[in-house]
């Protein structure tokens, strides 16, 4: 069973993603900010990370940078999520593998997750 780590501060978003993914047979772990996500990496060893862009304590940009500079997790597929357009997000970070704009449809989430897990871009 593959594991997805969902990192989002917003009530409702993480819960909805968790339900969608668990229904499809994925194991899901959650964190409410980047700092908590980094602390959970070793514990859950995810196959993919869904990362929110705006969060308290440690935002998506900082978290992405920390993950990419960690040799163990640097190649993990990462989906960046935001209510903003991607062009705004790319002003501060580009090193993710897929962008999902909120609010999103369940099918779009599953398609992106499935594709990145089947064909990891950083093998």
């Amino acid at each position, binding site marked *: 069973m593959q594991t997805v780590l969902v990192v989002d501060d*917003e009530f409702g978003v993480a819960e909805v993603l968790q339900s969608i993914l668990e229904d499809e047979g994925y194991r899901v772990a959650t964190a409410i900010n980047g700092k908590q996500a980094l602390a959970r990496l070793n514990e859950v060893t995810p196959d993919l990370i869904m990362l929110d862009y705006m969060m308290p304590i440690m935002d998506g940009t900082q978290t992405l940078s920390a993950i990419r500079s960690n040799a163990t997790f640097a190649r993990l597929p990462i989906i960046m999520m935001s*209510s903003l357009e991607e062009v*705004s997000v790319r002003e501060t970070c580009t090193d993710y593998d897929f962008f999902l704009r909120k609010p999103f449809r369940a099918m779009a989430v599953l398609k992106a997750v499935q594709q990145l897990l089947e064909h990891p871009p950083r093998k």
Partner: protein
Amino acid sequence: MSNKEVSEPGLERIATGVPGLDEVLKGGFFEGAVYIVRGTPGAGKTILANQICFQNARQGKRALFVTLLAENHARMLQHLEQMSFYDAKLIPKYVYYISAFRVLEENGLKGMMDLLRREMRAHDASILILDGLIAVEETSTNDREFRKFIHELQAHAATAGCCTLLLTNGRRGEYHPEHTMVDGLVTLEDVPYGKRRQRELEVRKFRGSASLRGRHPFQITDDGLVVHPRPESRFLRNTGVANAGRISTGIAQLDAMTGGGLIADSSTLLLGPSGAGKTTLGTAFLHRSSKAEPGLHFGFYESPDRLVANAQLLGIDLKARVAAGDLEILWHPPFERILDSLGNELIDAVRRRKVRRLFIDGWGGFAGTAETHERLTPFFSALANELRSLGVTSICAMETQNLIGPELLVPATGISAVTENMILLRYSEYQGQLRRLISIMKVRGGGFDPKLREFEIGPQGLRFVDSFKTAEGVLSGYSTERSDAAAPANKKNAAKGRRATARRRSKA
């Protein structure tokens, strides 16, 4: 160096940038102060808070928007995209959105306070919005714990110089212990008046400054909230300086009746039934508009094109006055409107062009928008005071309810006390014809010719003809020839007319 670091110490204001609100707050909220914004769901709290964030972000200030159990960010931003103040480019650098609900759930009030404190500092926030205070209240085990949270937040906001707005629907009824602690309380309500509803904003508490009192209507438009400060609270000055000058009415005979024209800066109520000639008299007054005496027609019933065309038929060339820039015609079709907005728009239009001649056509256009009839007299009193202070000589048409007859049914009480002058237009039946009559009922601080005059409206405009020198009972609407040998029936009619005149004077 941040904006806050270069500001002077003391009570600095944070202008909201919300049209009308800064005037109500006399400059805006205060830096480092905590305010509660209370309103039912849909009242406009979230839009107001976002509008303040984006308006300040444009000035280089940073805002932190923290949600609890509220609309999710993606949905909220989708809705905000429709608003002109929204600018995605200002996110995340100047406006940053986070949710604190899960922190509140997992770490309680202390965890929540730590988060707010850290994030205020991390984002160098000048403005903090906490949307969903009710969730904090519900998490608190008792009032004391909740008040402690507010108290601590105040301390951190003051230290950070961060103006904090706590948004809540305040569903606990009237007792809100936190209201005694915060620096201010703003309520947003949707108030029913018959079949219509009106949004109203009130500053119930505001430490450190006066504010415009009372409930101010507001609208939610594509530009966000627009507040219309109540003219009664906005226009409080009354210079009381008597101006000895005279302003021509545009009709020589009427000028003669008033002792040389209307007293400058005075307000005149022009009473009369439909079709009696109020608009014609008003357009004659405005036809004298010039560079020295700019004119304004503030009307509700006739479109500018129709007004100009009708005046042209009477030999009054308003078009030339408009073309020369001496006259402006503002038309407000009598749809559902806000009284306060109309009053403020009128004063703004007067100020913009330094108007000296104003004709309002008419009083009923304002009256139709009032939430309650009782508001009209203080409303007009405020407008009249402001117009006087601005050096405007104004005429306001007011339609009386009966076309003909001994009674003068004025659709407002106490209105005569507000205006300096009153002119009455009436119909009277005389010798088998319906005649138009004009008379002056009041000229404050000046003498006037009390005689009744007959006038006609034709291609030459408004023209005075013979007065009713030999008639009696004219104001009753049924004139008779005065004669010592008059028939008993005529004497009866004349007595009826005198009684009607007495009644009219006592009513006015």
